[in-house]
């Protein structure tokens, strides 16, 4: 860091994300590193801010460690000899690597309750995600490019549903699903997640579709494409990034859900989150299942996170209001 003053550190992120107006500003770049003829900060101030930079770095490293430690604890616990669990802390695995074993995972994967639950998680998550993306895209397109009476009012009504808490539907849908005979099956959570995923899907995709240049659609129309073909051959391919963000958000939302599945599934249709929750009532005794089980349930979301950072962040950011 010796080559740059504190001032340039502040304004000099390594990524090109400074806004255009700042880049275009006449004095920004030279003055920021103190060489542009502007009054330089006093030597004392620069020393102070540089040593402050050292403190800052230490603080941030400590924070990063603080944020990593809990997850690391789970990971280390899940790879330890079960006999050691009650004897010593998970951190001793680093000084005594002989404790390392994947025994808990082989036990876990031989546990039918857990593997069935994992399969149920997939069977709930995939249809919920696909249906929300498809229905959301259709409605979003209609709100963006079709003419019908009261279009904007309908759209506003849908957006109004964005913040409706899922809690309000638990009791009514428990009744409804009981009446139509899907209570206790995976159909319940799928329907529930489709219903509560749609406002955000319609909102996000309508806004994305509205940005598509009109000329593009008109050109396709001149080629003789009907509305349905236009949607599938022009609009959907263009909407890739938005559909990906939405799909990732919805996928994680359903994958990570506990409350809805806890109410609407039974032991044969329960997803992983519910199966693990049943183990938490006797936490210490069941840690041998819970540690690897929790890791199994979070490894998919983490993989999605690292593989699709950009779509993930924009999806989660926009959908966090749920």
């Amino acid at each position, binding site marked *: 860091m010796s080559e740059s003053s504190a001032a340039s550190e502040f304004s000099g992120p390594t990524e090109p*994300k400074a806004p255009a107006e700042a880049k275009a500003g006449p004095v920004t770049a030279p003055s920021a590193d103190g060489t542009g003829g502007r009054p330089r900060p006093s030597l004392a101030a620069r020393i102070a801010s540089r040593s402050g930079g050292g403190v800052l770095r230490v603080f941030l490293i400590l924070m990063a460690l603080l*944020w990593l430690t809990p997850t690391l604890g789970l990971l280390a616990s899940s790879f330890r000899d079960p006999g050691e669990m009650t004897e010593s802390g998970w951190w001793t695995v680093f000084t005594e690597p002989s404790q390392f074993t994947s025994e808990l995972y082989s036990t876990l994967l031989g546990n039918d309750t857990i593997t069935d639950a994992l399969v149920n998680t997939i069977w709930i998550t995939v249809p919920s995600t696909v249906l929300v993306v498809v229905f959301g895209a259709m409605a979003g*397109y*209609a709100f963006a490019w079709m003419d019908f009476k009261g279009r904007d009012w309908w759209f506003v009504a849908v*957006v109004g549903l964005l913040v409706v808490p899922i809690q309000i539907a638990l*009791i009514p849908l428990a009744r409804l699903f009981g009446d139509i005979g899907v209570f206790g099956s995976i159909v319940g959570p799928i329907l529930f997640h489709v219903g509560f995923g749609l406002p955000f899907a319609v909102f996000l995709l309508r806004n994305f579709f509205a940005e598509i240049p009109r000329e593009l659609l008109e050109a396709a129309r001149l080629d003789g494409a009907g*509305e349905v073909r236009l949607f599938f051959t022009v609009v959907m391919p263009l909407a890739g990034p938005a559909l990906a963000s939405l799909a990732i958000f919805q996928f994680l939302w359903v994958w990570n859900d506990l*409350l809805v599945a806890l109410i609407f599934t039974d032991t044969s249709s329960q997803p992983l989150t519910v199966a693990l929750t049943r183990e938490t009532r006797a936490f210490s005794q069941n840690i041998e299942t819970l540690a690897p089980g929790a890791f199994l349930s979070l490894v998919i979301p*983490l993989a999605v996170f690292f593989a699709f950072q950009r779509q993930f*962040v924009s999806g989660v950011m926009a959908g966090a209001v749920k």
Partner: protein
Amino acid sequence: MSTPAVSAGAAGPAGVPPAKPRKSVLGTKPGVVVLFLLPALIMLGALVVYPIGYSVWRSLYDETGDGFVGLGNYGDVFTDDATFTALKNTAIWVAIAPALVTGLGLIFAVLTERVRWQTAFKLIIFMPMAISMLAAGIIFRLVYEADPDQGVANAVVVGVHDTFVESTAYPKASAPNWSDMEGPRAKGPYTTKSTVSAGEPALLPLVGLPPDKVPGDPGPAKAAEAAGDKITGTVWLDFQKGGGGEKGVVDGKESALPGVKVEAVKDGEVVASATTGDDGTFALPKEADGAQLRLPASNFGAAYNGLDWLGPSLVTPAVIGAYAWMWAGFAMVLIAAGLAGVDRNLLEAARVDGANEWQVFRRVTVPLLAPVLVVVFVTLMINVMKIFDLVYIIAPEPVQDDANVLALQLYLVAFGPRADYGLGSAIAIVLFILVLPVMIINIRRLRKEGPR
């Protein structure tokens, strides 16, 4: 959507790009409109809109649904003990968590602007957003385990405590029955039967502790020497590994017990006290002459074991800590995106005018970020009102009532043994009313920015 990885998010939950006046590309046939809209509208109607109406209606009836009780269930929200506790805890959550998380996000966003590895740092902080509240709950149950040999939180607390406060307790030690001391079988206090006098060093042997388990591994005990009119003596572990040594005699190999408090007692009153040194010896002033010696119970109390994180008084702060761990990344990324849009010239101008970094932050950066901070804060507030999984998983069953929040109470009341759909619906409607202002703000903003 062209956002750089993890450094910028979308415009915000309520951000709507201004829509241009659009017309259908085709003169759309009504049948096609219905085809495109119907699936979504049916789903929304049956699964979101209908439940709102049903809940309002159901909340006016009693638990079985037969008797009309008017607003009685809403009264119960405030008078039913468990529900009222849940309401209070939700209020605590709303008062603390959004401010805490927004503050953390602001600190991280501003501070990471200065470092080169900000992307790595942001990835680490943001990562918990990906995992389920269930997994986070299990992670933090592990963190908050009471035993300092298992829970990392207590391991740290005990480590820090023992660094600053010397741990001197010998919980397992006791006075042997063949010694001159009387007392209970364990935990003390132990008092000598005879009185002490100057010139005759007192011998206070203790047993019950394996020599290799003496904390701090002190050296061998030394027999105290007479020192004028002072009362001297030794407290030591009268036991050698592998046997040997004579009972009641300091033989030079047995372990000293440093830090033991020794009191001189006359007629039930403490006249003097001392603490044993590294070699186990102590010296009392001459006032102690003729007194009985006592080893108070504090010497034999349990070692410090950290905090009861999941006990009734700390459980809510502990769960809020887990929540902050999950959501700080969300606040940080949104605020960092806002920060990227702040005009650097304004900050630079303030610096040129002589403002220090704190003043620049306080008077320029924060006011410029105000709109983003409000969005983050409000989003977190809505989220916190509905918190369920974390509390349900982290709070052990015995303290569930102390940690209860509205969304959890709804679940317990409606789907637990009480099976009270009336009160459950009333709680749901209360939650709905709490987020209603945000819904109205969303709609108004959309109307303003939308076409015409």
